[in-house]
């Protein structure tokens, strides 16, 4: 409602809604978006953060060596699960269940193996990419259900902001590709609009599917009602595990599948799933004897049937394919759910699609960030008229520095802690995370005591330096160094190094642009605002490249 009680148009109402719903949860949304975007590379990040596995190189006999090692370290286990090395992770990751172990994940024992030798590796303790991934939907250090409600609320706000933003700025569809640099607020608005509209399908998809993913946690009541509170029964039914396949009897039971059997399994799966091939295997070993092997494809070919990955069951002794009941096709509603959530999780994505998702996520993160900056830039004239900075504006400014630039610093420090803490330090994975939060908190403290512009420049420059040095740090602390990792085709590590450097270079460019524009700080009252001075203000307030072009 307007204070003068005049009737308000739809666009004004939407503008109000957009501005304030955006501000309330924008900082959190930026973290969710940026860390969520990094989560598309979660496996690669974890691999980078374990330099001990960088030497692992898959060979023709990787699967056989893995079986040998498992037969040695887990001879009594009732089941072996093997995740084979691939372009995203050079190591073999195995888990097994000892007889009588607890149900669920708690009863699993895990190990990481060298793909070339089958030796057990001892990678440093780290949460790796999982920390960033977990933070983006359940934050940290608070009860999961609370965190998910908060993230869910932020997601709803995001949907509200997308819809109200489109209504407010309906001109964006006529000036579709417009970006006008060096125009202060105009540039920020252009950048905000362009990234919003151009990535609208992605933004909408990722937000809506994020809500779908949180739906079961936030609104369990329908399932509780239909399944009498047993939500596990619901998920078990949705996942529809196929009936166990009986292995034919053999006179001499084998502890591990022989090489010939493995060879025929590899050949058959390569022929059956040409574009995704084999990703993981499960060896069922009732009584400690290998009975059947279930192979699953590496990447699904379709979004619709996710949750029911293609699989094939083999006789562990001979490698002969056994008849397994085909999984039932998903219902229409389940298929829609699968399409959205799998797209969100990037589950199906090969390299090309994963990069597209990653870039779209970065564009979305920029949209959120530019909106936060715009809030400040838009209020500069008002502030100049006032001749001082209202406390609320100052609070938003300082929080912007910490929440936008400071998050990059926190991420960079997280990776540095990973390499600088001794590998054998007790509780080292917790220390990495403490480093992340300490850097974030320090950036807020710094933003509070320094001038707005100075704080932006310093935080950006420090984050840029730390990120650009990551490839050197990686090489110096036992990781696979850059030229070599490319030559070897170790793209999980090489792409991390290159992306970190590129990201750092981008931040450095912004810091450089900000420091170059020798214009008065936005905090001081200014002369008559010319176009140039406004551009300076935008730079002073800005974090990102849109307003910072020459």
């Amino acid at each position, binding site marked *: 409602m307007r204070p003068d009680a005049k009737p308000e148009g739809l666009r004004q109402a939407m503008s109000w809604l957009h501005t304030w719903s955006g501000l309330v949860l924008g900082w959190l949304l930026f973290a969710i978006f940026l860390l969520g975007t990094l989560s598309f590379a979660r496996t690669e990040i974890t691999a980078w953060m374990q330099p001990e596995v960088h030497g692992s190189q898959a060979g023709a006999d990787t699967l056989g060596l893995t079986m040998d090692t498992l037969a040695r370290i887990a001879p009594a286990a009732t089941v072996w699960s093997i995740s084979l090395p691939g372009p995203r992770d050079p190591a073999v990751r195995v888990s097994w269940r000892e007889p009588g172990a607890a149900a669920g994940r708690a009863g699993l024992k895990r190990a990481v193996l060298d793909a070339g030798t089958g030796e057990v590796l001892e990678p440093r303790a780290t949460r790796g990419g999982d920390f960033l991934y977990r933070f983006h939907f359940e934050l940290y250090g608070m009860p999961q259900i609370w965190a998910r409600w908060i993230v869910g609320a932020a997601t709803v706000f995001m949907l509200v902001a997308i819809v109200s933003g489109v209504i407010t700025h309906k001109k964006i569809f*006529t*000036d*579709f*590709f*417009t*970006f*006008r*640099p060096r125009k202060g607020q105009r540039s920020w608005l252009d950048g905000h609009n*362009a*990234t919003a509209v*151009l*990535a609208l*399908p*992605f933004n909408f*998809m990722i937000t809506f599917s994020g809500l779908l993913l949180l739906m079961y946690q936030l609104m369990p009541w329908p399932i509780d009602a239909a399944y009498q509170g047993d939500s596990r029964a619901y998920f078990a039914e949705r996942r529809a595990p196929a009936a166990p396949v009986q292995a034919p009897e053999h006179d001499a039971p084998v502890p591990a599948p022989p090489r010939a059997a493995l060879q025929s399994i590899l050949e058959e799966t390569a022929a059956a799933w040409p574009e995704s091939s084999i990703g993981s295997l499960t060896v069922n070993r009732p009584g400690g004897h290998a009975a059947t092997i279930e192979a699953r494809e590496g990447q699904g*070919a*379709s*979004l*619709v049937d996710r949750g029911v990955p293609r699989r094939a069951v083999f006789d562990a002794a001979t490698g002969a394919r056994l008849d397994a009941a085909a999984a039932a096709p998903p219902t229409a509603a389940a298929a829609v759910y699968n*399409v959205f959530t799998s*797209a969100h999780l990037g589950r*199906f*994505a090969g390299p*090309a*699609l994963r990069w*597209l*998702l990653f*870039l*779209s996520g970065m*564009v979305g993160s920029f949209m959120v960030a530019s909106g936060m900056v715009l809030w400040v830039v838009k209020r500069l004239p008002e502030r100049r008229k006032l001749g001082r900075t209202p406390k609320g504006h100052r609070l938003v400014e300082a929080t912007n520095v910490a929440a936008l630039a400071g998050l990059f610093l926190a991420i960079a420090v997280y990776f540095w802690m990973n390499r600088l803490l001794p590998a054998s330090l007790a509780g080292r994975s917790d220390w990495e995370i403490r480093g992340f939060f300490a850097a974030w908190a320090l950036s807020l403290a710094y933003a509070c005591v320094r001038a707005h512009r100075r704080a932006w420049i310093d935080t950006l420059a420090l984050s840029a330096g730390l990120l650009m040095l990551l490839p050197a740090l990686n090489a110096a602390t036992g990781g696979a160094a850059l030229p070599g990792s490319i030559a070897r085709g170790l793209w999980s590590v090489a792409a991390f190094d290159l992306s970190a450097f590129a990201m750092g270079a981008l931040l450095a460019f912004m810091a450089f642009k900000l420091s170059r524009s020798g214009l008065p700080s936005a905090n001081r009252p200014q002369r008559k605002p010319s176009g140039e001075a406004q551009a300076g203000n935008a730079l002073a307030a800005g974090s990102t490249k849109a307003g910072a*072009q020459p």
Partner: protein
Amino acid sequence: MMAWISLGWAFAASAMLGLSMPRHQEQMLARELGAPWTLAWRAAGYLGWGLALIPCLQAWSVSVAIAAWLGVLTAAAMALGALLAYAPRAVLAGAGVAALASSLAWAGA
């Protein structure tokens, strides 16, 4: 490979859509076009966006193809926006090259 082909077509199509908008006509051609041309470019642009879906469908199943296609449209439109802001005169040539290169690559594939 198909993702690149799709990207080339999507970029060219986005440029055609740009040619249907007065503001961007001014940027690319230094004059505004009449209604018939505007309409024609708009139709061509949307058609081109549709065409860009074809290589995706050849590379992936329908559901993945649509997700990839949306990503490609985003990347193409971002590239066009940047080019219009900093090198508007290069857009038409760039779009022509992109369309041609993608078509050749597609015909050869």
